[in-house]
């Protein structure tokens, strides 16, 4: 058997709890999506934000 170290650092708990992290992700994606049409923007933004936040808050094994 071999012992191998884990490379990841957990998402900082204080940000996840305070909502600071989701807000930052949401804001960044919203800035990006200012470049596409308004009608498409809302649906795409919602999907991107949902994907990002669910992944970031679930953590890693």
């Amino acid at each position, binding site marked *: *058997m071999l012992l*191998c*170290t884990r490379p990841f650092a*957990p998402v*900082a708990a204080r940000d996840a709890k305070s909502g600071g992290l989701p807000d*930052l992700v949401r804001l960044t994606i919203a800035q990006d999506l200012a470049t596409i049409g308004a009608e498409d923007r809302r649906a795409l933004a919602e999907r991107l934000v949902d994907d990002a936040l669910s992944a970031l808050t679930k953590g*890693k094994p």
Partner: protein
Amino acid sequence: MTVSSEYVEVTDRLEDILDLYESRHWTDGLPIVPPTMERVEAMIAATGRAGSDVVAVLAPGHGAATVEKIAINAVMAGCRPEYMPVLVAAVEALADPAFNLQGVQVTTNPVAPLLIVNGPARHTLGFNAGYGCFGPGHRANATVGRAVRLILINIGSAVPGEGDMAVAGHPGKYTFCVAEHEEESPWESLHVERGQPRESNAVTLVGISGFMNTLQATVEALAEAATFSGSNDYRFGGCSLFALNPAQAQRLAASGLGKRELKQRIYERCHKRVRDFERQWLEPRADELTLDDPDSLVPMARSADELMVIVAGATGAGNHSLVLPSFGNSRPVTRAFTLPR
């Protein structure tokens, strides 16, 4: 034992280790070097620092990039221990607020941080500035660039489709590291231009969104290659990078152009007009542009000084220079580093 990270027990069969790391999304998709305790310890020792030292906190996950976590990812990328000072300096640069790592990591734009290495460490550590310097073949370029990506994934939480929302991504997200060919440059090198002593070592990080070759490197040809209305550089006022091959740089210098004059001439030829864009695209620059006037000029950078010029590539090859559009919403950051005597 100096390593404090949690570990996983796996069989010593390489295939099992690779499967485990891949299944946990701890890799970039390529095989890794298993980060055993011994290898990580050697990597930490090369820094002369404690493994628990926090070098930076990396967005968007805000994970703590300790010396030890950087070391683990460096082992996985295939780095030699002596590359660690470059890597630690690069991580410090990533976290500088001017770099806007949050934006670089989360954006739908295909931006990747490019590392540009300057100073005598290029030779000591074997960074390539000549033939194919943006391509394969040199361990220092390949593994330091790859380690930065693994750090962004594992410490910054930039897993594609999760913390990294780039629509299509960028091949430079596997590895993106080059050295400047200082010996062939007719001008002062990038790190000196950015305030570092000539004999110092430094790494500069810049957020790059594209990669284009131009056969000609006249001012007009360089400007033309950078001037497209879909460029993020117009949206934010960016810092496009011009990587000139030695012969073409020397030809421009022989015509009387210093680096500053070259950047000014390119800048003057890269203006577009407000009417060339949807208004909402230019909103981030509302403070400096006259958005109500369709004939008003839109420069691709906030000033000529913000354009970047380096010399890179093979000596004596007369053609082929590169134009690399930037992410725009990020400023280059330079950090000095020293190697142990």
